[in-house]
């Protein structure tokens, strides 16, 4: 698969209390799917497709996990920024939410 030679990457931190559970995963997929780029998210040896809910859930990432986002394609940089923003805003979840 060829996605062009543009590449961007960034390290993000899972800051919300419940970690990367179903809703954040869906959130990520929804945002990632808006971009043409091929986007991977995960840790060394376990990079999963950011456009796949199941893949993201398989990471089983609790609060405090550092994850790497890599994007390949024309809109790689924009994709990385949008996704990193989600992590920074804790997917809109507050600590007390149950």
């Amino acid at each position: 698969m060829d996605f062009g030679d543009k590449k961007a990457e960034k390290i993000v931190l899972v800051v919300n209390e419940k970690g990367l559970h179903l809703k954040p995963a869906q959130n990520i997929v929804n945002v990632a799917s808006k971009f043409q780029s091929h986007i991977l998210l995960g840790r060394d040896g376990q990079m999963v497709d950011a456009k796949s809910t199941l893949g993201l859930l398989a990471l089983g990432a609790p609060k405090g996990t550092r994850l790497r986002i890599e994007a390949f394609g024309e809109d790689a940089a924009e994709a990385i920024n949008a996704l990193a923003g989600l992590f920074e805003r804790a997917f809109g979840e507050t600590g007390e939410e149950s």
Partner: protein
Amino acid sequence: MKSKPPVMTRVTDLLKSEELQIEVLAGTSGLNRQITHSRIQKAGLAAAGFVSSVEKDRVQVLGATELEYMKSLDPESRQGVCRAICSTKAACLIACRGIDPPDELKVEADKSKFPLLKSRLQTGSLIEMTNSLLMSRLAGSKILHGVLIDVFGVGILLMGRSGIGKSETALDLILRGHRLVADDVVEVVRTGASAVVGMGAELLRHHMEIRGLGIINIKDLFGVSSVRDRKRLELVVDMVVWDEKQEYDRLGLEEHTYSILGVPVPYLVLPVAPGRNISVILEVAARDRLLKIKGVNAAKELQKKIHEAIAAGSMAHIPAESEE
């Protein structure tokens, strides 16, 4: 697709395997020695005193004959040989068939922190099993994006970019009685010289994501016969968007392969377009794969027939359009 294969494993990892039936005799403090080669060395020459044949970080095996030979030596030369063996940089030494090696070997092993082990297995089976265990350990594992499904007993890995319809195709195949192994996240491990086995992530086992439906549990919906936990990868199918300008294989004369953890797996590129029933094509691909495993290649057979026919000049007998 990133993978981080461990370049080495340790002697302690051999102990964890129940099938190898290994027990430690001496040199316990050396058990974290590393193993970097999957091939096993028979320590025959070493037992005869030629220890420069012993390679670093490799597992050494002593068979019944070698052990017999060592016992036949006079005590002094036996001790010399044992000391020489234990001073090598080999990973460990395993005595086979449950035979106890000479006491001198145990003493020297403890002195040199050289792991001395014993297995109840016969030399041949021990070498074979240790070899395949090490091979899978040293090759590591890898996460692939795709769907792994068992179609007529053929493990097919469906790949292609997100949204191309991998999961939908798999669902169609499940409805036709085939079995899902993993959706989206396929963990592959090498299990021998030419075999890679795929399985799903523990947490997600037998779940699928279907756009518009969400996450579904295949085992609950379709029963235990619709899933399986692991399957050897026998065919990789890359689903691509049909591109008018692209040329696709129309004959199937050439066999392409896709390398997974160093193992070449037969590989097909399957263009997806409206009106192409992918699950039916995959069923046929699986049947064709089974035939090829038996040595039958439809394209090659046809090619042979045509060559023969042309050579015999017998194409002429093919009836022309009816002349009335």
